[in-house]
């Protein structure tokens, strides 16, 4: 039972263009969402997050958009750089209280930025 889904296993984008990575979730109790980036042979590293009380959060080249009614979020990277090539994981949690320690991850999307 996948509660967090990343339906695109891979994505290729030209350097300088926009990368859009998508994530859908089914559990309406999730109210905090995170994106992690993972390089080969390394652990995931935190990238950006968003609370369900917001619909957008921006950090430099990275923006996360949340559409609660559609249970959908997306990560935009503008402009894309070759160093952004990695696997991106979407994760969700209950934002506070007893369940906040538990992250549910998607399967990941491998982004390749072509120079």
């Amino acid at each position, binding site marked *: 039972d996948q509660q967090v889904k990343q339906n695109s296993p891979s994505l290729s984008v030209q350097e300088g263009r926009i990368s859009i990575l998508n994530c859908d979730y089914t559990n309406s109790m999730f109210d905090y969402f995170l994106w992690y980036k993972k390089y080969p042979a390394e652990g995931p590293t935190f990238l950006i997050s968003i609370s369900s009380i917001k619909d957008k959060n921006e950090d430099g080249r990275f923006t996360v958009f949340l559409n609660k009614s559609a249970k959908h979020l997306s990560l935009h990277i503008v402009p894309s750089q070759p160093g952004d090539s990695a*696997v991106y994981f979407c994760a969700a949690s209950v*934002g506070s209280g007893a369940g*906040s*320690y538990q992250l549910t991850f998607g399967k990941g999307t491998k982004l390749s930025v072509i120079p």
Partner: protein
Amino acid sequence: DTAVSQTPKYLVTQMGNDKSIKCEQNLGHDTMYWYKQDSKKFLKIMFSYNNKELIINETVPNRFSPKSPDKAHLNLHINSLELGDSAVYFCASSQDRLVRGNEQYFGPGTRLTVT
């Protein structure tokens, strides 16, 4: 000055053996986790400890036993290893399980291969 470290990075062993993976964090975090990334690339939580107390124990065979000697360490011991245990195991930590926006910091992973 690695934040979350795991040893060993690679572990190759035969079925039936018992092995341990060690994890240490120097971030002063209260909560530590073990995740398993299987061949389908899903990152699934196995255990979580908060201040040396077990707070998550997902449906994991009892051949897996976490041990937390102090809040900076969470080791994973696996008895009677099976082929299906082959995976990458990630340790992670976070500051406070009840804080909104529970960013977790991951170790580099331990690739376990059971032959």
